[in-house]
């Protein structure tokens, strides 16, 4: 679409169902009660001049530009703060109003630089627009005190702050408060001295600002403006697409000039993000043009050889011949593939199709194996569907939020902002987490209860909460009798009521004070709509699946399922975790979660694909690596995933990869896994392809191509080339045809097509004949499986125990500015906020070891050791240490073990027994790995054909 700014109706919509009719400039208009005059006029097509108003913020009434006249009322009220009333007669343009507005605008302009022609916001400036709208033709005020000539703050890597251009409308301050909820900005001083200040008048980079971009988006002038806009100019077209970072699935307008991306602006109509963004989606897309991106295919016969650039034809032919050679030598099941949650549904579907139909086995798995596979297992067992139950809008109706094992302000920041908005309006918060995350206590937000449990004891805590609810007689028996299996409930209730599950009994084990746990349980059961949000701190444990089922039990026993404001909400780590799982990426399931032993499902695929599908489950990622070490698994096609850095027990992963004869890495960069690869197929970024992502709320959203793939192909085309080289016919012309096939074979996607998505913006599956516009909230009239299933959740201690050699427990997580293994964000300016992984350690534990802030420390587990610098903090309890895993130089997963969830093999990243001590430098592993990486990344630059 051609570029134009989004329509701004001036104030937020009213939600009342009551309607009010009034007259504006002689036209009748009917709007919901509570609507402002400004918005009502805008809905009629009348844009009342404004500066401090914008429809993402509460009305403020400070600029005095939006004045109107109302019959029967004295004066000239501001239309942004005046609600409609029945029969009101309003005039928006009179001689008096024109004079008043010109006078106000004249004052603004008298203290504003008149450099419009060279201003970054030229053509996209509300001040400029409004000066035109009010007919300002002269400024009578000349010399005198002004704010001109002040120094710019250019400290933020993505935007500049020019105080000379500030009109002190407070939109940036209000955006930071109301939308983002960080409260980093303020108006410092009074009267003429008023100015916008970040934190305690610091520069933006040093302040508490989290660079979400809400202030930049809200600014009506060039005071806060993207550096890219200053560098490139204003955009000339815009395409709505979906972010490629976390599972929130924010939609953005990719604003372009030609094929150059100027900026990503959060789309107001986006149903996941509602016009908000975080520093990653808004700004950290520079990796797409990074100099380290590989654009030519490469092959080599052995991993100690340098890469050789080749044509696409040679790379694909070589890969196919190697896979066929391996299968001829070692059998049909000696090869497999890994799909990625960073890729689209269409790409993921095609990779699993390649494996099942082209390779002829079910050895396909996805990176969800190492994050949310327990969610799939646990929710399918209890509810019947491997997915969360709500949409993100649901949080606006919740009264009590239980967050367990998730850090939304860092991992899912846009959802966290919406959550904080609800908390500021009175909802209560319970946090279950070993760390004191930012959501526990922040500006105008504080958890009622923070249960800082010992890592690995989730099941004990949740079962104890259920104990309190059942023994206090707070179970919602009406809900349970109507919706759940009553006999299973009775069995479960008897189980949880046992005194061994009482908070007092488990406190020595979990470290959670019994009374705190009791109060938290009582609050959740009695506080109104109760919702549960969880993350990898739940799933990445030896009892990950059990914890998910304990969460489901808690939701069912309190009747918190099947309506807005409640439910079980897994916060997915990557953008398309849900979609990758939906698409049949697991080795035991076809798309739509049908087991490969399902004859009817397999027959459907056989009829469409022309080949029989193996009825036996294939290998999961850890099983593939084990089989490789054992010599039976020899070839692996990995699309968009870096298992060497992201998967646990790095030494074992490297041993498995090194034992294979053909490892194919299909990615943007020579990632860590590529050190062990024989073929590198350059991938395309989310900006260069068409497709869909499915976010954490089951919302399917379009990814739209805004520029030509620099590598030459969209990723699905590369998979198709490989299939064709393997003599398996694929002949799609466009990603939409792949979605059509997905819809044809996947009941929950039956109503999905690109045309439907273009029409509706997005849909949440199930989307089919029964729900043609999708399903925002699941299990409304009953569970998908029939009756909800209560499952006994006995706490079983992990085998990973502390002791004299390894007295501390390591847990891992992510930070706001970085994403997953950092392949994307490390290649952006985001690294300025997080240049290295650090080890958080409690001051008491540090003192015992003679460690001071910034010291290099060695962390050692039963699996391995690495070094990194120490960060002393009481965010972690004594006995617990924490780090992120964004940097390959640290390789936190050298330390993590191959313990895994009992049901799904999801690794137990969150509990590793370790010892920490001072260090003089890198470990032998780090030095050896660094040398290997340098050697492995050599490229013989031979021109491709």
């Amino acid at each position, binding site marked *: 679409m051609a570029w134009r700014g989004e329509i701004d109706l001036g104030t937020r919509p009213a939600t009342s169902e009551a309607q009010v009719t009034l007259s504006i400039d002689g036209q009748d208009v009917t709007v919901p009660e509570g609507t402002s005059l400004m918005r009502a006029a805008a809905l009629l097509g009348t844009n009342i001049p404004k500066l401090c108003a914008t429809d993402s913020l509460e009305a403020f009434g400070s600029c005095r530009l939006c004045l109107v006249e109302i019959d029967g009322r004295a004066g000239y009220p501001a239309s942004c703060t005046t609600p409609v009333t029945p029969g009101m007669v309003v005039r928006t343009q009179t001689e008096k109003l024109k004079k008043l507005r010109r006078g106000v605008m004249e004052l603004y302009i008298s203290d504003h630089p008149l450099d419009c022609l060279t201003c970054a916001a030229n053509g996209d400036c509300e001040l400029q627009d409004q000066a035109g709208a009010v007919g300002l033709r002269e400024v009578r005020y000349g010399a005198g005190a002004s704010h001109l000539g002040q120094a710019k703050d250019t400290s933020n890597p993505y935007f500049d702050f020019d105080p000379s251009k500030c009109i002190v409308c407070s939109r940036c301050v209000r955006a930071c408060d109301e939308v983002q909820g960080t409260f980093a900005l303020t108006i410092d001083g009074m009267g003429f001295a008023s100015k916008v200040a970040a934190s305690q008048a610091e520069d933006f980079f040093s302040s508490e600002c989290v660079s979400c971009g809400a202030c930049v988006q809200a600014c009506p002038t060039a005071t806060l403006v993207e550096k890219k806009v200053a560098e490139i100019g204003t955009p000339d077209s815009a395409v709505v697409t979906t972010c490629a970072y976390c599972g929130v699935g924010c939609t953005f307008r990719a604003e372009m000039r030609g094929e150059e991306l100027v900026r990503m602006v959060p789309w107001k109509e986006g149903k996941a993000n509602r016009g908000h963004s975080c520093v990653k989606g808004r700004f950290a897309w520079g990796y797409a043009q990074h100099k380290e991106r590989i654009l030519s295919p490469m092959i080599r016969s052995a991993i100690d050889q340098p890469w050789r650039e080749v044509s696409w034809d040679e790379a694909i032919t070589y890969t196919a011949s190697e896979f066929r050679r391996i299968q001829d030598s070692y059998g049909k099941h000696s090869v497999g593939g890994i799909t990625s949650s960073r890729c689209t549904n269409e790409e993921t579907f095609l990779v699993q199709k390649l494996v099942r139909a082209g390779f002829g086995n079910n050895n396909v798995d996805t990176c969800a194996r190492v994050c949310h596979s327990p969610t799939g297992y646990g929710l399918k067992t209890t509810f019947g569907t491997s997915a969360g139950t709500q949409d993100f809008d649901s949080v606006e109706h919740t009264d009590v939020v239980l967050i367990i094992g998730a850090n939304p302000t860092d991992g899912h920041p846009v959802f966290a902002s919406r959550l904080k908005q609800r908390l500021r309006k009175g909802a209560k918060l319970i946090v279950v987490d070993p760390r004191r995350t930012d959501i526990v206590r922040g500006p105008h937000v504080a958890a009622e209860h923070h249960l800082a449990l010992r890592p690995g004891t989730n099941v004990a805590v949740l079962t104890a909460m259920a104990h309190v609810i059942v023994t206090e007689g707070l179970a919602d028996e009406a809900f349970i009798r109507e919706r759940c299996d009553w006999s299973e409930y009775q069995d479960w209730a008897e189980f949880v009521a046992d005194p061994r599950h009482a908070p007092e009994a488990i406190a020595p084990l979990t470290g959670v004070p019994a009374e705190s746990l009791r109060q938290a349980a009582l609050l959740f059961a009695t506080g109104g709509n109760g919702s549960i949000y969880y993350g990898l701190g739940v799933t990445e444990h030896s009892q990950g699946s059990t914890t998910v089922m304990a969460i489901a039990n808690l939701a069912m026993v309190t009747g918190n399922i099947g309506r807005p404001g409640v439910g079980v909400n897994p916060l997915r780590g990557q953008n398309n975790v849900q979609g990758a799982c939906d698409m049949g990426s697991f080795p035991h399931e076809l798309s739509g979660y049908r087991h490969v032993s399902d004859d009817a499902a397999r027959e459907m695929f056989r009829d469409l694909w022309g080949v029989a599908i193996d009825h*036996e489950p294939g*290998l999961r990622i850890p099983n593939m690596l084990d089989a490789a*070490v054992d010599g039976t698994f020899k070839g692996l096609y990995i699309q968009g995933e870096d298992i060497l850095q992201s998967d646990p027990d790095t030494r074992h992963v490297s041993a498995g990869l090194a034992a294979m004869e053909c490892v194919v890495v299909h990615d943007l960069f020579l990632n860590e896994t590529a050190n062990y690869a024989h073929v590198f197929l350059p991938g395309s970024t989310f900006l260069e392809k068409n497709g869909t992502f499915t976010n954490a709320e089951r919302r399917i959203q379009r990814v739209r191509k805004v520029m030509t793939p620099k590598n030459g192909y969209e990723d699905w085309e590369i998979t198709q080339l490989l299939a064709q080289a393997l003599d398996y016919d694929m002949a799609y012309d466009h990603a939409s045809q792949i979605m059509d096939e997905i819809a044809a074979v996947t009941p929950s996607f039956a109503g999905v097509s690109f045309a439907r998505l273009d029409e509706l913006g997005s849909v949440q599956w199930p989307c089919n004949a029964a729900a043609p516009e999708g399903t925002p909230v699941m299990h409304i009239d009953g569970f998908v499986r029939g009756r909800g299933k209560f499952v006994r*959740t*006995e706490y079983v201690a992990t085998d990973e125990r502390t002791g004299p050699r390894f007295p501390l427990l390591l847990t891992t997580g992510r930070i706001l500015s970085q994403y997953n293994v950092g392949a994307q964000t490390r290649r952006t300016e985001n690294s300025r906020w997080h240049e290295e992984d650090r080890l958080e350690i409690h001051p008491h534990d540090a003192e015992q070891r003679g460690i001071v802030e910034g010291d290099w420390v060695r962390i050692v587990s039963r699996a391995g050791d690495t070094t990194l610098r120490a960060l002393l903090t009481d965010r972690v309890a004594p006995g617990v240490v924490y780090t992120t895993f964004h940097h390959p130089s640290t390789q936190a997963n050298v330390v993590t073990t191959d313990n895994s969830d*009992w*049901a799904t093999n999801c690794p137990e990243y969150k509990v590793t027994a370790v010892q920490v001590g001072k260090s003089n430098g890198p470990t032998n592993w780090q030095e050896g790995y660094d040398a290997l990486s340098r050697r492995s990344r050599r490229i013989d630059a031979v021109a491709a054909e």
Partner: protein
Amino acid sequence: MSGTLDKLVHMANQIAVEFGHQQPGAAVEATYDHLWHFWDPAMRRTIVAHLAAGGEGLDPVARDAVVRLAKRDAA
């Protein structure tokens, strides 16, 4: 035992312990069902062969589940 076999025994025991708690009266059946639905045939063959070799390290519930696997694979 090899590293992989060690892991398979450990995994089978983990599953057996969980189902032993979840469904005390049907733990063997549940464990067998889980192995059948989630384990690759080569993994199942390895654990069945281990049982035939004495089944060292297998929890009783896991052992009985693997006995059932062996019977089904033999059928």
